[in-house]
């Protein structure tokens, strides 16, 4: 059985302005928008102690504010050094202008 966990309203996040969301049972999450689609990943960089939502989103990429590494917001895969370990990405669904994390 999968369950849905409310993250935020769709208008709380926009392309280039990802949002930090804290929900019970998960580490801090980053929620992104790109071309009308929404994505969620862990917010803590796997390299330094930085929140990715303080970084710079450029298209599919979020750049870490600390050391310039980057991740793909859709897959969590690292795309620039020094980041080498993927961040976790989560499936989301949108209903009634609300973004939900789909949890297995």
């Amino acid at each position, binding site marked *: 059985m999968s369950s849905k966990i409310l993250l935020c309203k769709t208008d709380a996040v926009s392309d280039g302005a990802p949002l930090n969301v804290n929900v019970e049972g998960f580490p801090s999450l980053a929620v992104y928008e790109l071309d009308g689609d929404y994505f969620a990943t862990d917010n803590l960089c796997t390299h330094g102690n930085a929140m990715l939502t303080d970084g*710079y989103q450029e298209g599919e990429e979020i750049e870490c504010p*600390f050391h310039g590494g980057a991740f793909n917001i859709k897959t969590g895969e690292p795309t620039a050094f020094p980041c080498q370990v993927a961040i976790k990405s989560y499936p989301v669904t949108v209903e009634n202008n609300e973004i939900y994390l789909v949890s297995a």
Partner: protein
Amino acid sequence: MAVTDAKGVVIIGANLAGGRAAEALRTAGYEGAITLIGDETELPYERPPLSKEVLTEPDTLPAQFYILDSADYAENNIDLRLGVRAERLDTVGQKVELSDGSEVAFEQVILATGARVRRLNIEGSDLKGIHYLRTLEDARALSEELKPGARIGFIGMGVIGAEVAASARKRGCEVITIEPLEIPMARALGPRFGAWLAQVHREEGVDVRLGCGVSSILGEQGRVNGVILNDGEQVDLDALVVGIGVIPNLELAEAAGLEIDNGIVVNEFAQTSNPAIYAVGDVANSPLYFGGRGRCETYQNAQDQAIFAARAIAGQAEPYLKPQWFWTDQFDINIQVLGDVISDAEVVIRGDENSRQFSAFFVQDNLIRGLLTVNQAKDMGAGRRLLERSIPVDTVALADVNIDLRQLLKKTA
């Protein structure tokens, strides 16, 4: 001993630059042999934690301390030779001679020989209890000294002195820093924010002495126990940390006849005066973003120049020209510096300069030339793009924390 048959790339320096170069060669699809040579016995590792986590949490190494896991070298077919020195670069015979008597043939060489610490040469310099910081071994030895209440003196308050002083305070040490210039980290932060940093250190209980030198080092039974300042004051100490800069390791390059000028002279592709030989990181004298040339002793430069050199060898040459960027972590403060913050540009403060969170933009002719952030790394992403894209800025808007910097990018994009 035999010369390794397959000619490929030999990387000299098993450090951040060397490790990244090896990795980037494979990422770029390079299929030849790669040999990575280093005189330390450790796998290539990150040096930034040596002045911070390795000192403040000495029992464990920080996560991702090593550039690559040992298995990654085998998996990527990288021949790692640790604990050996490259003794000679034979550019005619195209081979490198190693200290264990073996030789490695090459098609290209990447020199990532880095720098070594500059040592004191006044009386008492060879006493025990005097520490320098460059390697993991140095950091571990220094960490042993940082006992609560220990009196730790610092000669030099550059980035190493300032970071280690902060770590020593965190360990509960009494700290005195002795810096000959009137400003700490002057070369990195410029006068205004260097002075700002001195104030932070004083607030954190560091006895900061500026415009002050050491005339002699005192010892007892072979161990340092104090210094005499050049105004005659005697300071009792349990240990002394010396951070007075580094000297590039040029010997191999010099002997190979490469062009040298305060570093190995390279072009925008990290190529030396011998096109088969590249030099990257601290040791390279490279074209600079705002013109001229220089050596950059930063993490970002070591990493990025190595990657660009690797790509050039793999047939994907692109000029490497980025504004200088570095960060430092001291106490509860993360400072990042991008571009040129030393020039006499107009300084636009975004936030409160008297707090520990603000950004300072260095603006000349409506263009951002430099950016310094204090616990405000999130301004760096947009700030870097404003600088690199040469987007004219309105200084009033820059200073207005209610205006999202990303809006300034879009306006003229």
